[in-house]
């Protein structure tokens, strides 16, 4: 074996106890401060206003003051069957959407990636995404329609659906709204995953093939780990949207029939803007917000895990 032939003519002294400090970054903080303060004011003000409302019985008349009720609004939540059912439906709704969209999006991206028709097909697939959710809801409302809706006709002809319409039955309405969300947002996942697939290091794939791996092993050992950050972004975006955007649901079912699609945000909408029970609505909104933030933070922290970081 070759030895490193360093003659010991100068033994280094012990490392100095005080190391030079890296240049200060404080300068940037000062520059950013005004923007951060403005942003904080804009987004913090409504946040505190929400908390304030949730602790009061909010009056709808300028002459009557709001009445302090303490945590009464929150206490009421626990015994509110609709509220708890809203959570359950929200979980069912967003988890089904997520699984379907990520699964389909991944599959579509893998099929499209490097295919000859990638560019034109992606353009076509993106169209649902360009549509305003309310419009999507309206389009599907007609497609689902019990009398002249195309889907209804197809499914009834096939004998899958008997007399009822898709959105009119408590057993299928949830499926109906999940399908619409999936139709509209799978393209987004496909787009994100396609971007991720372009970043999968070819050299690692090649090394792995030479090491003796086939296509399936390659996918799980090299492609998928490299896609995780992209899938995380997709999941984060979709999950936040499902917790907040209910335009399509309002248009399609409005929470019905028999509350079978009354996911929490729909219930919140009803409490606050149909019944104008603003204090109670604020309490619901606050719990929804807290859960959204916590799940969001968990997902974001997953990005910063060292095992997910790609350094090239």
């Amino acid at each position: 074996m070759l030895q490193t032939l360093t003659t010991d003519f100068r033994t280094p002294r012990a490392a100095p106890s005080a190391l030079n400090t890296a240049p200060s970054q404080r300068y940037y903080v000062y520059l950013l401060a005004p923007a951060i303060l403005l942003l904080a004011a804009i987004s913090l003000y409504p946040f505190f206003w929400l908390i304030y409302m949730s602790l009061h019985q909010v009056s709808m008349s300028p002459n009557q003051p709001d009445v302090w009720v303490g945590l009464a609004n929150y206490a009421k939540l626990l015994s509110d069957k609709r509220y708890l059912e809203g959570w359950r439906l929200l979980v069912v709704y967003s988890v089904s959407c997520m699984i379907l969209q990520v699964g389909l999006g991944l599959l579509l991206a893998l099929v499209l990636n490097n295919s000859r028709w990638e560019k034109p097909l992606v353009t076509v697939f993106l169209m649902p995404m360009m549509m305003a959710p309310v419009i999507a809801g309206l389009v599907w409302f007609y497609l689902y329609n019990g009398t002249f809706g195309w889907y209804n006709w197809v499914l009834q002809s096939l004998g899958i659906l008997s007399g009822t319409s898709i959105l009119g039955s408590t057993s299928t309405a949830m499926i109906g709204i999940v399908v619409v969300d999936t139709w509209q947002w799978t393209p987004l996942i496909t787009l994100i995953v396609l971007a991720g697939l372009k970043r999968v290091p070819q050299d690692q794939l090649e090394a792995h093939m030479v090491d003796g791996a086939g296509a399936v092993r390659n996918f799980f050992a090299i492609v998928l780990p490299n896609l995780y950050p992209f899938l995380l972004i997709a999941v984060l975006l979709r999950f936040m949207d499902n917790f907040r955007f209910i335009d399509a649901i309002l248009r399609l079912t409005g929470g019905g029939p028999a509350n079978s699609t009354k996911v929490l945000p729909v219930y919140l909408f009803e409490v606050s803007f149909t019944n104008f029970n603003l204090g109670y609505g604020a309490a619901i909104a606050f719990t929804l917000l807290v859960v959204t933030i916590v799940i969001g933070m968990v997902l974001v922290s997953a990005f910063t895990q060292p095992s997910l970081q790609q350094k090239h």
Partner: protein
Amino acid sequence: MTKVVVSEVWKMYGKVPAVRDLSFSCESGEFLCVLGPSGCGKSSTLRMLAGLEHISAGEITFDGKRINELPPKDRDIAMVFENYALYPHKTVGDNMANALKLRGMPAAEIKTRVDRAAAMLQIGHLLDRRPMELSGGQKQRVAIGRAIVRSPKVFLFDEPIGHLDAKLRGHMRGELKRLQRELATTTIYVTHDQLEALSMADRIAVMNEGVLQQIGTPQDIYNHPANEWVASFVGEPPMNFLDAEVVTTGSETDLEVRCGALRVRLSDAHRHRLEGVRGGMRLGIRPEALQVAGAAPGADWTAGTIYAVEPLGGDTLVEVAFQGGRVLAKTGADFRGEMDAPIFVTVDSTKLHLFDASNGRALT
């Protein structure tokens, strides 16, 4: 023990040919170097052998079996990639063990193999690190380790030691050569470093612009280059090339090669090479075929002046300018001389290389 045959292989990237009509064979257990400058199609050739690149035309066989359509995993090859291609999330040890694990080798056997390779490559202390935490040379050694832990049919090396420092490179040349002889595994080794090729290979295939120029033993390539291009690419310091003329002095068989003041009388053994050739041709002289002296010891010496002196420690390179040209000569370390001082130079006429001026082909 696998014999690799490449026949009439082309590689086109779109309309651009990277490898043109390449044919060679690598005997079972042979160490074949593919030598050529950057961009000559070496990696493309290797990647076609590995199954990573589609073969545009022609056929490659392992032991007579066509492998064009075989995916890489079924070719049983081990490859060292030019850009290392290590798995960033795996430790050095796991990088090296990956192929063995994929083949379901028992853990104890894997460990012995990895440890043995790591010891040879002097990376035993790095096994728990991740590639990100390694220097370029260390990464390259891990990449070699990943190949040599296996017992494949064929080793494919793509410039595996190009990024090591000179000393370690010298060490690795010896180790790899020894390892290959011990394992007797068919090896195709790509390099642009002629010293590597000359020192390690059983045979060398020299390529330029996608075309095979010559294939032969290192001695063949060095002593009998097939054309001017091979002669200029192989050898360090490079061969001197001069435009020269063949003239008859006295009788018809008395030949002399002339370039300005430099005159070389051809020995009997070389005379037949110039049969029919008269007038312009290219003369190639390796620096070690030249001798220099401060005073003219005889009649065959040409007078010139010292253009530059480059002491290299063990040898000295002297660039001599004479009327009509300039040549680089290699001489002993004890050479002393000032710039522009007079000097005399002579050529060992048995070591001349003669090339056709029109197409660069060697006259043999």
